[in-house]
């Protein structure tokens, strides 16, 4: 359950990142406290024996006293000088009067002088003390708790008391005391360490206080200081006890909230503001257009040539003004209409529309640049030379540019660094978008010109039905409809114009994803300053007294899986520190990458590794016997055990030991057993024993060990032989009567020296945190002659091995790490135990070497080292390959469309003027004979009705030259088939327009027209 919860929390951490992420919930909170008052104390007695003073104190408050209690037994010197001793003890006293227990916390300073010989009298010179009388308390409450997503408390709201009790306050105190005793060996102020003859100045409680706050002992003569430290240690420890031992799994739901910082897609301020303003203006424009719209239903029919023809039909004035102007430029019409005012009558009364010309003031006609007799042909801007050049070159240039920038982007991990200034970032998106919009508009103008002139081009090429050319207007049609129409009527220029019009908007859509901001890795080399260096332990002398409190604590916590590696260490490596924390060090070294993810530093290290190997359980040979009895070989190893009556003994050896021999047959050893003795406690089924470098355990074969070859070389270098004694060996297992199942773990101190790559994470607030260490294993060499630099005793005495530093002072219990022993009877369990023992020793070695091998005395050559600063999240503007390819395809497709249009759509000699004004269109219709065929009342007909009337329903129309009946020629639209020539040249000779133009085969099915080039009115019967 715990592990699944851990996984769940980890998953949440992954999804809810951010430095300010937190969660809140109304949950239970546990709080403990010590309620303390001050008391007083008297020194009641002072005695001494051969080694110690014995200081007795009576502590009391108004209704309770401890009586004379032994508080401290510091060592005594029979010199006659005055010595001052800090003393302290916590006494739990059952007060008879109140039937209530109280804690008497006594701290004092006593100055005494001993006699010159140990049978004299000790003299008390002064005694100062602080006494606190405390009672423990705790409460279960409910409050709004805010934590980060890893569970670290951030804030506790106002608590509300719950009516639920947990345990008695004294049980909690007892638990605290148990924990205190277990942790005592890790305090360098440990009373046991002060005096090897068993003397002490403090009990564990005062030792813990002194070790925690590193105070001068006299500080605790101030009751406020003592009370504050005391309460804080108890309160915080009690919270840990409650958290670790009082929580049971449950599942309830409560109200809460969460706050997090996530990388989310957000609207950018400036772009959003501009877009917002634009959309607002567009809404205003829409409203105004709707209010002032010229698009009334009565006017909507006037936009087609057929409607215009009907309007002209009813307007003789306009007809006469525009008569003969079909071939003239617009300036000529402007001259003829100047001075006249024009109105549209009838539309508001639902009567027939007619254009009325009124004479207003006399305006002098402007001179026409073109003589009336000379024909000039109009071409749209999109078909001008400059635009053609732009249309041809621009897309190809952009395609080439896109390809070039894409290759640069791919090769250089992006085009450029993402600008810090966001306005520069806009340039990366807006410039491509503007370019594509420009191309889109350019191509749209070509498509628009084709749509505008398509009807005239059709009329100029052949006779066609009115429905197709006079009754509709291509400009108002969407591109898809133009494409369909072009395909249907095989007007391929129109088809390609439609396709081009369809593709143009895609340019703007696709270009929006062209430039992306993407993280890439960026590296920068540095030469970085070191604060110290780590020397080899070879030949150095260091031992337990050289520990400092933080390092010892770190070793303990790291083994228990808690806490981070102290500065200068990681796993089993000890390496030089940087001059300051990693971030400041990079700044000092002149780094340009200011937001780097991590820095790799190449440094020399000491590797304090302890290699452990599981011994083959089937290789053990043993005998079991009762205490006092001899084994079959005649030895009585049980006697040198603890000698407790009723115990049994186990003599064992292993086939992997070089000294293994089995000479006499036995139930479990067919030869004589020369081996080690293990004490088997009476009434037990399990045994365990640890041995430190016993000579009997010389290992024969190292090849089966982890890194066996390296180890063999190291052993050979150290011992001059391939045999070696494991530094630590643990035996454990089960036994019954005369049989046993034995497991063993052997460990070897594998101290090495080499180089590593230390990685400091820079993305967190703690830039001193090492995230990994990569050793260059091929460069590592074993360290020899380090046996005088060990974390415990400087001699080989088994009594002063690692155990003296471990919580509870027990290697075996510490190695078990709260897991039941039986778990380690399996192969998996044995391997895990080997790892745990290896970790345990490695942590102690590493943290010890971290203190004793580090020094600031190093040469100039080693004050700096090479480092590599790495930013994994360096923001680069990259070009999307998908968008690039799509854009290139679109541009090339549009370019092909434009080529097709320019090739197929001939606008030369097509029309004499821009046909977008009413006058220009009317001039093409004013001379038409078919106007006379329009029936009365057609002015009131809808476009659909108009198309069912003569001449629109039953005649074919064309545009070109017509006989004006007076020996001349007019240019315009009429029924029948016009002359499709280019007109007359300067000498009055008709220029032919080429073959195929006048072919009658263009007449469509279902429609008939007399193919008579010179007859302008050709009525066809109702054959439709």
């Amino acid at each position: 359950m715990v592990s699944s919860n851990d996984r769940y929390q980890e998953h949440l951490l992954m999804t809810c990142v951010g430095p300010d992420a937190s969660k809140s919930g109304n949950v239970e909170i546990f709080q403990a406290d010590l309620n303390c008052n001050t008391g007083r104390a008297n020194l009641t007695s002072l005695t001494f024996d051969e080694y110690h003073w014995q200081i007795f104190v009576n502590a009391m408050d108004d209704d309770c006293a401890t009586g004379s209690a032994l508080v401290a037994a510091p060592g005594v010197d029979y010199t006659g000088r005055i010595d001052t001793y800090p003393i302290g003890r916590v006494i739990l006293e059952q007060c008879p009067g109140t039937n209530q227990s109280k804690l008497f916390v006594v701290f004092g300073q006593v100055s005494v002088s001993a006699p010159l010989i140990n049978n004299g009298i000790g003299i008390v010179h002064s005694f100062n003390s602080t006494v606190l009388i405390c009672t423990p308390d705790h409460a279960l409450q409910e409050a709004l708790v805010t934590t980060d997503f890893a569970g670290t408390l951030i804030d506790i709201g106002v608590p509300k008391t719950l009516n639920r009790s947990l345990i008695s306050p004294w049980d909690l105190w007892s638990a605290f005391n148990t924990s205190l005793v277990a942790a005592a060996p890790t305090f360098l102020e440990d009373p046991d360490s002060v005096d090897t003859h068993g003397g002490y100045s403090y009990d564990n409680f005062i030792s813990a206080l002194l070790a925690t706050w590193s105070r001068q002992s006299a500080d605790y003569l101030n009751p406020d200081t003592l009370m504050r430290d005391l309460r804080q240690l108890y309160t915080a420890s009690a919270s840990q006890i409650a958290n670790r031992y009082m929580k049971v799994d449950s599942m309830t739901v409560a109200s809460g909230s969460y706050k997090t910082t996530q990388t989310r897609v957000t609207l950018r301020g400036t772009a959003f503001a501009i877009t917002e303003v634009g959309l607002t203006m567009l809404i205003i424009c829409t409203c105004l257009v709707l209010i002032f719209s010229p698009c009334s239903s009565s006017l909507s029919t006037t936009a087609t040539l057929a409607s215009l023809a009907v309007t002209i039909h009813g307007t003789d004035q306009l007809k006469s003004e525009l008569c003969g102007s079909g071939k003239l430029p617009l300036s000529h019409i402007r001259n003829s209409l100047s001075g006249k005012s024009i109105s549209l009558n009838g539309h508001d009364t639902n009567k027939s529309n007619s254009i009325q010309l009124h004479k207003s003031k006399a305006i002098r006609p402007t001179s026409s640049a073109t003589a009336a007799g000379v024909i000039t042909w109009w071409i749209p801007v999109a078909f001008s030379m400059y635009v053609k050049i732009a249309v041809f070159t621009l897309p190809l240039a952009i395609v080439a540019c896109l390809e070039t920038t894409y290759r640069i982007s791919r090769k250089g991990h992006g085009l450029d660094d993402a600008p810090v200034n966001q306005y520069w970032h806009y340039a990366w998106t807006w410039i491509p978008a503007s370019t594509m919009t420009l191309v889109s508009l350019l191509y749209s103008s070509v498509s628009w010109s084709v749509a505008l002139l398509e009807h005239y081009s059709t009329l100029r090429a052949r006779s066609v039905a009115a429905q197709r050319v006079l009754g509709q207007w291509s400009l108002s049609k969407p591109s898809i409809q133009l494409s369909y129409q072009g395909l249907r009527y095989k007007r391929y220029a129109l088809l390609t114009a439609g396709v081009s019009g369809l593709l143009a908007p895609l340019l703007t859509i696709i270009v929006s994803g062209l430039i992306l901001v993407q993280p890439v890795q960026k590296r920068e080399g540095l030469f970085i300053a070191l604060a110290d260096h780590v020397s080899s332990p070879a030949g150095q002398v260091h031992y337990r007294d050289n520990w400092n409190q933080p390092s010892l604590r770190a070793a303990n916590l790291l083994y228990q899986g808690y806490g981070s590696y102290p500065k200068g260490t990681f796993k089993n490596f000890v390496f030089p520190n940087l001059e300051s924390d990693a971030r400041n060090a990079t700044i000092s070294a002149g780094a340009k990458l200011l937001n780097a993810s991590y820095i790799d530093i190449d440094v020399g290290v000491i590797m304090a590794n302890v290699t452990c190997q599981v011994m083959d359980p089937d290789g053990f040979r043993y005998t079991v016997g009762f205490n006092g009895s001899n084994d079959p070989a005649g030895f009585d190893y049980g006697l040198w055990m603890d000698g407790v009556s009723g115990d049994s003994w186990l003599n064992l050896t292993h086939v992997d030991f070089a000294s293994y021999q089995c000479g006499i047959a036995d139930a479990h050893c067919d030869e004589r057993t020369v081996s080690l003795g293990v004490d088997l406690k009476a009434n037990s089924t399990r045994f365990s024993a640890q041995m430190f470098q016993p000579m009997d355990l010389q290992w024969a074969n190292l090849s089966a060990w982890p890194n066996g070859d390296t180890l063999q070389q190291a052993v050979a270098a150290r011992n001059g032989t391939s045999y070696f004694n494991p530094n630590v060996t643990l035996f454990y297992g089960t036994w019954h009567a005369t049989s046993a199942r034995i497991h063993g773990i052997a460990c070897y101190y594998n101290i090495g020296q080499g180089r590593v790559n230390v990685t400091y994470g820079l993305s967190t607030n703690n830039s001193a945190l090492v995230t990994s260490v990569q050793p260059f294993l091929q460069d590592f060499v074993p360290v020899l002659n380090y046996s005088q630099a060990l974390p415990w005793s400087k001699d080989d005495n088994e009594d002063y091995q690692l155990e003296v530093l471990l919580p509870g002072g027990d290697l075996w219990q510490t190695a078990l790490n709260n897991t039941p022993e039986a778990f380690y009877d399996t192969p998996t369990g044995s391997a895990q135990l080997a790892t745990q023992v290896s970790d345990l020793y490695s942590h102690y070695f590493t943290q010890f070497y971290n203190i004793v091998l580090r020094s600031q005395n190093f040469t100039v050559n080693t004050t700096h080292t090479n480092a590599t600063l790495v930013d994994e999240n360096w923001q680069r503007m990259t070009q999307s390959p998908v968008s690039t390819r799509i854009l290139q395809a679109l541009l090339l497709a549009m370019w092909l469309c434009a080529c097709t249009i320019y090739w197929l759509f001939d606008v030369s000699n097509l029309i004499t003027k821009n046909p977008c004004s009413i006058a220009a269109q009317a001039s093409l219709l004013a001379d038409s004979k078919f106007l006379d065929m329009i029936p009365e009342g057609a002015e009131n007909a809808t476009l659909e009705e108009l198309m069912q009337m003569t001449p629109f329903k039953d005649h074919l129309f064309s545009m070109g030259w017509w006989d004006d009946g007076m020996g001349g020629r007019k240019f315009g639209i009429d029924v029948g088939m016009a002359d499709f020539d280019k007109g007359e040249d300067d000498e009055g000779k008709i220029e032919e327009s080429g073959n195929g133009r006048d072919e009658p085969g263009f007449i469509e099915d279902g429609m008939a027209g007399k193919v008579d080039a010179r007859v302008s009115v050709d009525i066809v019967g109702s054959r439709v």
Partner: protein
Amino acid sequence: MTLRNHYLTIIVLTILAFYWKKLDYHTKALMPWKLMSEKPQSADQSLLLDYVSANPLVVLSRAIRYGHVPIINATIGSLIVILITVFSTGLFVLQPTSILENTTVSVLNTFDGSRFNASAVDSFPVLVVSSILSGNLSIDYPPGTGVDYAVDTFIVHTALDGQF
């Protein structure tokens, strides 16, 4: 996510541009008829008036000169649609955003002293507290604990990324 939003915005604006183009065309095409229907106009403001083929800037200046409000609106609208289409390409960006939301939390455990065994407590509580209070090691209190409190373990149900 960013690309999706980019494309979605541009597609919406493209559709908007399509309809505005139609509105723009019809407004320009019918403007001379509208003017003539209101009152007699000069030829330049009626039969010769061409808002359809001229480029937008010419159209705008001509419409402002003549005071043709619908043309001014339609032309400005067309320009705005083009501009916001361009500007909208820089509309979205991935950036850290602070989010605060109310939700329910699942409390995964509760305090219960019924099975508490004071003698089973190990060195960890005092060891870790002493280490933290000493200030010599850069370690924090274990999750769910602080200098004064131990609290229930709880997790939040977040709708972020649609996962919880």
